């Protein structure tokens, strides 16, 4: 498990929502990787900080609660919103459809009205005087000196600009911001009634291309041009709702404002990803010029991982494949990248010539016509279903013998034992041959992890093919004795236990 994968799982690991296997893998990684461990410690501290500063050490005094209760009773006497007669979502959707479907001259008139409306609101005509809250200061607050400052500030609208905050959605169009602020400022007593929200579950409206905010975010990464359409539609709908003069629509207008803000925020996020990716892509190109091929591949991979499905991601994938193929000679990686180019991206990213180019290379890599790529060629041929069983075994043995330094040795050992254990009509002598071969390999290879793998494969054949359990226990014991791959040793211990229990039960 690598750091990038672990970082993705860190939240779930912290919340203990991973499967026990994944939980163990992450834990193992955290033990060995200082950087991820630090990230995890920061996560633990963050939550501890949040919790530690979250609860009041004492509740307000009874006077405060009594004051609030009295004020709430008084306000209740002024009446609540009338109950809705039909689901609001449906009515709004119909309304939306009707608005969008109007003739052009009406839309034009609406646009003019919209601008006028924005202007009126910006002039502050709809601002209402803010009602003071119950005075909560005298009984338990000493800092009454603050009060005059607030009173003065409320009487004079703040001339200072809105403080920009990181992460808050920033709207592109000033009139949208004006309207949003005006609605918030209006402080209509009915403004935050939540009942209509409960009825208004069907937003975004049917017929729009956005099924949810998540979906919106993802789509906008691919097609930011949609945002202006959606924002326009919402603005039109909002204006019409407002002009209809019914205050019960105000909560829904607020909801739409938030939707617009979310779109703007998503678009901004998409822009940021695009700009970051562009920068990384340029760095990768520079690495190529400087002949730092591994660095280039790393940058291209970053680009392709950052915004999956995007054109930039596709180009990153394509370039990573090319560098692997042309400069480094890591054909396995090149093949994976080329295959991703074909399988994971929309077909219109592939121009005809590029498609031909990629398919040709994939063909070259998979059909083993490349003379300079013998180990993989042999491996793929051995795995080919059309190749006879015996020939396949010979090829895999040849691969292990001729290319001991190749990373495919492990895959070949896996393939060999798999074929013997699961193959039909495999004779005992063939299995014994392979055990002897693995024995030779154990002696020949100096790497302990490889020795352990061959030992484990031997044990597996005794266990699952020959059904010689006492011998299998002995062989698994040898696996445990080799100090290299802890997970393999653990697996062997598990098998020993199973076999032992099995023996005891059926003796």
């Amino acid at each position, binding site marked *: 498990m690598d750091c990038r994968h672990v970082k993705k799982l860190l*939240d779930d690991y912290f919340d203990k929502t991973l499967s026990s296997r994944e939980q163990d893998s992450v834990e193992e990684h955290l033990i060995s990787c200082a950087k991820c461990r630090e*990230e995890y410690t*920061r*996560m633990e*501290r*963050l*939550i*501890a*900080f*949040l*919790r530690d*500063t*979250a*609860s*009041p*050490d*004492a*509740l*307000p005094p009874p006077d405060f609660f009594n004051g*609030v*209760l009295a*004020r*709430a*009773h008084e*306000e*209740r006497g*002024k*009446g*609540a*919103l009338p*109950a*809705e007669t039909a689901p609001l979502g449906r009515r709004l959707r119909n309304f939306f459809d009707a608005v969008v479907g109007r003739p052009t001259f009406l839309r034009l008139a609406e646009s003019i009205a919209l601008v006028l409306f924005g202007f009126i609101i910006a002039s502050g005509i709809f601002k209402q005087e803010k009602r003071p*809250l*119950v005075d*909560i200061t005298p009984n338990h607050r*000493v*800092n009454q000196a603050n009060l005059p*400052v607030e009173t003065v*500030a409320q009487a004079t609208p*703040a001339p*200072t600009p*809105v*403080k920009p905050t990181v*992460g*808050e*959605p920033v709207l592109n169009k000033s009139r949208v911001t004006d309207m949003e*602020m005006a609605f*918030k400022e209006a402080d209509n*007593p009915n403004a*935050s*009634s*939540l*009942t209509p*929200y*409960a009825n208004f*579950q069907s937003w975004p409206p049917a017929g729009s291309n956005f099924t*949810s*905010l*998540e979906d919106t975010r993802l789509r906008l990464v691919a097609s930011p041009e949609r945002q202006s359409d959606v924002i326009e539609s919402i603005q039109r709908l909002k204006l019409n709702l407002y002009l209809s003069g019914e205050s019960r629509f105000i909560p829904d207008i607020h909801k739409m404002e*938030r939707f617009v803000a979310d779109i703007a925020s998503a678009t901004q996020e998409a822009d940021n990803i695009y700009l970051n990716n562009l920068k990384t892509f340029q760095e990768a190109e520079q690495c190529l010029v400087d002949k730092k091929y591994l660095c280039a591949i790393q940058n291209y991979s970053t680009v392709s991982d950052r915004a999956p499905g995007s054109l930039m991601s596709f180009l990153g994938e394509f370039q990573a494949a090319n560098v692997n193929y042309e400069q480094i000679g890591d054909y396995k990686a090149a093949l994976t990248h080329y295959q991703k180019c074909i399988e994971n991206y929309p077909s219109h990213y592939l121009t005809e010539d590029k498609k031909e180019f990629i398919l040709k290379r994939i063909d070259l890599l998979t059909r083993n016509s490349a003379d300079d790529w013998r180990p993989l060629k042999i491996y793929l041929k051995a795995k080919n279903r059309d190749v006879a069983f015996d020939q396949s075994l010979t090829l895999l043995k040849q691969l292990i013998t001729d290319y001991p330094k190749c990373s495919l040795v492990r895959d070949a050992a896996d393939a060999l034992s798999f074929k013997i254990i699961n193959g039909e009509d495999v004779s005992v002598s063939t299995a014994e041959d392979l055990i002897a071969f693995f024995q030779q390999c154990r002696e020949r290879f100096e790497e302990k992890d490889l020795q352990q793998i061959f030992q484990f494969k031997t044990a597996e054949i005794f266990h699952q093919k020959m059904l010689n359990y006492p011998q299998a226990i002995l062989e698994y014991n040898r696996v445990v004795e080799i100090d290299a791959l802890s997970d393999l040793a653990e697996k062997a211990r598990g098998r020993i236990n199973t076999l032992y229990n099995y023996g005891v039960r059926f003796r």
Partner: protein
Amino acid sequence: MSALTVDPQIIKRCQEGDRAAFDELFEVLKDDLFRLIYSLMRNYDDAEEVFQECVIRLFRHIGSLRDTERFAHWLYRMVANQCNTHRARNSRRSYIPLEEEIEVKAEDFVFQSSMPDNPRRALMRKELMQTINEHISELPPRQRTAVLLFDVDGLSIKEVAEHLGCSEGAVKFNIHEGRKKLRISLGPILKFPMDEGAK
């Protein structure tokens, strides 16, 4: 488990306009409601204001609640919206003098069970809390609410999703993003445990 659960009979009586039932409802809810709002606002003054707004709205609009079983979701969502609206309103107030921001007033510690050892430590702790609050305020409303309800109030993903009226996937995404942003923005503070940070 949500704390804001109330006997449906009380709610029904409130809907019929029984004044005594409103008093009863307030008595049952007030402590938990205040704690919840404090955990979302993380500031005494703001918590009191939002608490008052929420109770007024609760009393005015409880009549329109159709399914009394969903009272807790309804209330959670209202609280979350009120907190977000209040924060948005506050973010536009820029008239508080700087001196007032950093001055440590004795009454700020009246409600703390453990009195700070000395004024310097008190100041450090106050600044630390302010910094954390500022960074929390900078999160987008959905991420902020999801992180606080899940990590601080201990609600499950499912409960948060129900309260906020969105999918569990969306809640998970928002928690993940919110935590990530806070880890980055609070990076220097998170190098030390809370006690050391306040020293």
